[in-house]
Each structure stands twice: as structure tokens, then as C-alpha cells.
């Protein structure tokens, strides 16, 4: 059988760190980084005798996420202990939710080549993050840093509704943008604040039963998720084609070798011994509480997309790409508010900015400059202070060393030459140096004009006003 005879089945468990100020069960800051073990207190270090107290924002944010993903919000919920030993888990149990998660039975819609598809969510629950293991200088030992221990997470579990790596990426991007829109997580994948456990299985097309799945834990870039799924699908199909059986196991994706590896030895079969945490009282949410959160939900990507079509007359495609990321969408709205030129803003974002992000492998949240910077850049071009060509150079500079565009052009001497006599000087010089082109033009080859203008631009390092150049060349050539 061939690759096309198999169907791929993927389910995701996405962990998003919530952007609360403090940890889930103590008042330590959640801020990323910091000297090791400085964002810690007796509680998140699991000192004997300490007790957890639940952060109210964590419940609120989880409910927000549930509402934004069409979940049913549980009126009765509780916290459970998941018991296992690991050095990054100081209590030897993670406070999570087992049989009564805060949100259940949701879905989100994704746009695929075959149209809109509903991806069902099993549940969203709250839990605490673990600490981090570092390695010591000599590679002999590991060092435990608990700054991240107790940072609040939501875990978003999808049904096995995804059918390809591509769909998975679209789903994840959509989920990420929703979480960004409702401002419950900054979703910075490079900082690990959004990561996914990916469950993959394959089955013959038409089969009723799912195949045995493998799980790849803690994936935190779109690129590796896509690569890992593609690799794992091939691996599983190869095994089945060779008459083998897939083992249900946890795998580790290695980005360097581009392969998956078995993570745990099987004799360590886990039994987490979940039970309700007796240190925490139950959660009971009223209809009023839930409704208040629903009312306060910010505008979601769907409705922004529709609004962009009408309000800014964007094309469907433009609106969709912009709203796929809250950061792009916010950049667009803020820059438009200042510059009053939505077309120019959308062009910059969808062409040069997107291109640079791709080249640099950055996510929109890593754009280093502000909407004011972009708006100013557009205004400078409109006013003719700089040319479009210089504009691109300014943008490149904004990515490297963000500051006010006017400062950038001033420092680099990029101000456009619009002085008639200066332009005339260049035009005459170019004409005298390119007699063949002049002859070509006069013989009816219009293209030669472009070449001449290009030469003039080169000589002025792109600073000459292109309209004036054009006009003056034509005038001179007519003589």
C-alpha cells in the first residue's frame, strides 16, 4: 500500500502559560527569566507546611479561554493532585484538574483548503507549570531552578480531529491567535509559554478504529511540530507496511537529527494516583460570573476580519492574514489610526514585514518596532521625504535597531533629493555616460528610460525623487 492509503489522525494537548502577574498558588511573580530561584517563596518551593491559595485571575482567564473557544463552562469544578516524582516538580505532585475541568466540549473553526473545518476541544483545565533543569558547567550534574514552578497554565485538549501536519499548524495558529486576542497568554513559543504535546496515529483510510498513537511532548515551534508530525507519520506507516506494530509511547523530537526518540522506558509505567487536593476548596461558578466574563470578552478574530472588509475595504485575503495574529492585527489598526492610510499599512505588513519575519524566522509578536514607527515611515514616503526604495531600507533598519524613522534617515543621510538643479545635474551626467540608451530610447525603445532612471538612482544611492527624475529625463530626451 502507499502513503495515500493512510489517514493521519492528530490530537493536541496545548499548554499555554497564563499572563497573570503572579503564580497560580502563591504571590511570586511569573515574569520570564530572572536569576535562578529568585521568583520563589516557601510555597512554590514546596517547603514543609506550606499551602496553596488559588489565584482568582487563573480561573477568570481559563473561563475566558473556554468562552472564546465555544466551551461549556463547568459550574462545579475542583483541583486534583497528579502524583509523580521529578526534580522540577517540588511537591512531587502537580496540582491540576482531573475529572472536573473548568471548560469542556468546545470547538474552534479553522480555514483549510477544503473549507471551514470544526476542530472539537475535549476540555480546558488549569494547572501549574514545573521548574527547569539546567546543566552545570562541567556537565556532571543537573541544577534545579524553580522560577517557573507554579506559573499558571491552561491545558487545551483537542479531540483527534486533525488530519495533517498542515491542519495542525493552522489549528495551532488559530488557537494561538485566539489566546492572544483575549489576552490570557502572550503565547511566546520561544519562551515556552505556548507548547504542545502532539498525539499522532495513522490508520488505513476507511478504518473505524484509531491506530495506536505516539505522543511527542513539549514541542514549541510550528516548524518542528510540522516536521515532527511528518517524520512520525512516515515512521509509523513504514512500521505498519513492514508488518510491525506501533507501540504506544512517549517520544522526544530531536530538531537537529530530525528524528523522534523513545523518551521513557516502559517499565516506568505511570500511575498518577489522581485525587482531589484537600488543601484547596471546590470551585463553584455562578451564571452571573460567567456572563460577566462573556460580556467583557474582547473582539475575536472572526469579527475583526468581517469589520476589516467593511471599515477598511480590505480584501478577504488581506483581512484573514492580518487577523490571523493579534500582533499583526493590532499593528495594522494602530498604524492605520495614525496614518489614515489602511492600504499602505496593509501593504507594508503583508509584503515587506511578513517577508522579513519569514527570513528571520520570527513570529509577529517579535516585531521589534512600534505602530508609530510604521505610521511615520508611511507618512515620510507620502510626503516625498523618502522614496519607497529608501523606505524598505528604513524598515530593515527598524528590525535591526528600532527607533524613529526620521531619525534613521537623518542619521544615514537618506533624505530624498528633490532639488531641481541637483537632479538636473545627475540627469545630464547619466545621459552623457549612456549614449547607447539615449539612442535606443529615441529609436522607440521605451524601456531604456527605466534603465536611465535606475542609473540615476544608483548614483544618488536611491535618494533622488523618482517622479522628478522621470519627468526630467523625458524632458531632456525630447530636446
Amino acid at each position, binding site marked *: 500500500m502507499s502513503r495515500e492509503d493512510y489517514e493521519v489522525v492528530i490530537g493536541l494537548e496545548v499548554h499555554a502559560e497564563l499572563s*497573570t*502577574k*503572579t503564580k497560580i498558588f502563591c504571590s511570586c511573580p511569573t515574569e520570564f527569566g530572572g536569576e535562578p530561584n529568585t521568583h*520563589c517563596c516557601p510555597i512554590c518551593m514546596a517547603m514543609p507546611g506550606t499551602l496553596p491559595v488559588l489565584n482568582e485571575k487563573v480561573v477568570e482567564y481559563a473561563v475566558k479561554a473556554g468562552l472564546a473557544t465555544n466551551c461549556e463552562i463547568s459550574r462545579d469544578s475542583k483541583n486534583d493532585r497528579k502524583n509523580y516524582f521529578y*526534580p522540577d516538580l517540588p511537591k512531587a505532585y502537580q496540582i491540576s484538574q482531573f475529572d472536573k475541568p473548568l471548560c469542556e466540549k468546545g470547538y474552534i473553526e479553522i480555514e483549510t483548503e477544503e473549507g471551514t473545518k470544526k476542530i472539537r476541544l475535549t476540555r480546558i483545565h488549569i494547572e501549574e507549570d514545573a521548574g527547569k533543569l539546567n546543566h552545570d558547567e562541567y556537565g556532571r550534574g543537573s541544577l534545579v531552578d524553580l522560577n517557573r514552578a507554579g506559573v499558571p497554565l491552561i491545558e487545551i485538549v483537542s479531540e483527534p480531529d486533525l488530519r495533517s501536519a498542515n491542519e495542525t499548524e493552522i489549528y495551532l495558529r488559530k488557537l494561538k491567535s485566539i489566546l492572544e486576542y483575549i489576552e490570557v497568554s502572550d503565547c511566546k513559543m520561544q519562551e515556552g509559554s505556548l507548547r504542545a504535546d502532539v498525539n499522532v496515529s495513522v490508520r488505513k483510510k476507511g478504518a473505524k478504529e484509531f491506530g495506536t498513537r505516539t505522543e511527542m511532548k513539549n514541542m514549541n515551534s510550528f516548524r518542528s511540530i510540522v516536521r515532527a508530525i511528518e517524520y512520525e507519520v512516515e515512521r509509523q506507516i513504514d512500521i505498519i507496511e513492514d508488518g510491525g506494530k506501533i507501540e504506544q509511547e512517549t517520544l522526544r523530537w530531536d530538531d537537529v537529527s530530525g528524528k523522534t526518540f523513545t523518551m521513557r522506558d516502559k517499565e516506568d509505567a505511570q500511575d498518577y494516583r489522581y485525587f482531589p487536593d484537600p488543601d484547596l476548596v471546590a470551585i*463553584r461558578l455562578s451564571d452571573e460570573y460567567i456572563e460577566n466574563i462573556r460580556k467583557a470578552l474582547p473582539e475575536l478574530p472572526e469579527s475583526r476580519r468581517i469589520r476589516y472588509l467593511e471599515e477598511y475595504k480590505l480584501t478577504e485575503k488581506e483581512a484573514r492574514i492580518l487577523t490571523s495574529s493579534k500582533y499583526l492585527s493590532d499593528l495594522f489598526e494602530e498604524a492605520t489610526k495614525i496614518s489614515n492610510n489602511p492600504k499602505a499599512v496593509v501593504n507594508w505588513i503583508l509584503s515587506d514585514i511578513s517577508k522579513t519575519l519569514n527570513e528571520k524566522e520570527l513570529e509577529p509578536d517579535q516585531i521589534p518596532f512600534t505602530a508609530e514607527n510604521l505610521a511615520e515611515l508611511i507618512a515620510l514616503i507620502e510626503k516625498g521625504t523618502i522614496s519607497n526604495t529608501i523606505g524598505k531600507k528604513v524598515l530593515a533598519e527598524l528590525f535591526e535597531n528600532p527607533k524613529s524613522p526620521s531619525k534613521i534617515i537623518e542619521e544615514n543621510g537618506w533624505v530624498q533629493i528633490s532639488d531641481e538643479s541637483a537632479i538636473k545635474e545627475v540627469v545630464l551626467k547619466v545621459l552623457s555616460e549612456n549614449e547607447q540608451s539615449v539612442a535606443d530610447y529615441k529609436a522607440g525603445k521605451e524601456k531604456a528610460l527605466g534603465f536611465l532612471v535606475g542609473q540615476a538612482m544608483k548614483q544618488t544611492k536611491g535618494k533622488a525623487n523618482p517622479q522628478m527624475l522621470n519627468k526630467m529625463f523625458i524632458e531632456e530626451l525630447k530636446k
Partner: protein
Amino acid sequence: MKVSKEEIRHIAKLANLKLKEEEEDTYILHLQDILNYANIVNNANVDDLEEAIGVQDKYNVFRKDEIINFEDRESLLQNAPDKENGMFKIPKVL
């Protein structure tokens, strides 16, 4: 209630305890004894009753999302059996 050697070993492993051979035997006996007694909970007629998480009917005790820094970092590390660069040191974990 019979508890097997494999079971006690599995349980010890989950609990991260290392039992000597003779300890295994004693614990099996004690565990069986206590479980046999504890089995009387299965005689209680509790079909219509809810499980009690604790003894209280309490809900929604939350904290405000406000930072309080714990200043005395030294005291958090002072009991560590082994530490390096302000972190707890353990044998290498892959």
C-alpha cells in the same frame, strides 16, 4: 485481601521507597491486615451519598493577583544538601 510481592514492589516503586526483602514480607502482612479491616467500608450503605472532598462545604476561596516578593532567598536554599549557582544540584538528568 491478598497482596502479592509484585504489587508491593510496584507500590514501593510508585512511592519511591526501596524495601528490603524482609520489609516486603512484613509490609505485605501489615497491608493485608489493614486492608482486610478497611474493607468494611464496602459494607456501608453509601449509594446515594456524595463523596466528601474534605469536611467542609466551602467554595471559591481565591487570592488576588498581586505580587508579594519573598525576599529571603538564602533561607530557601539554606537546607539544600547540594547547591551550585543558587540552584539545587542533583546527579545529571537527561
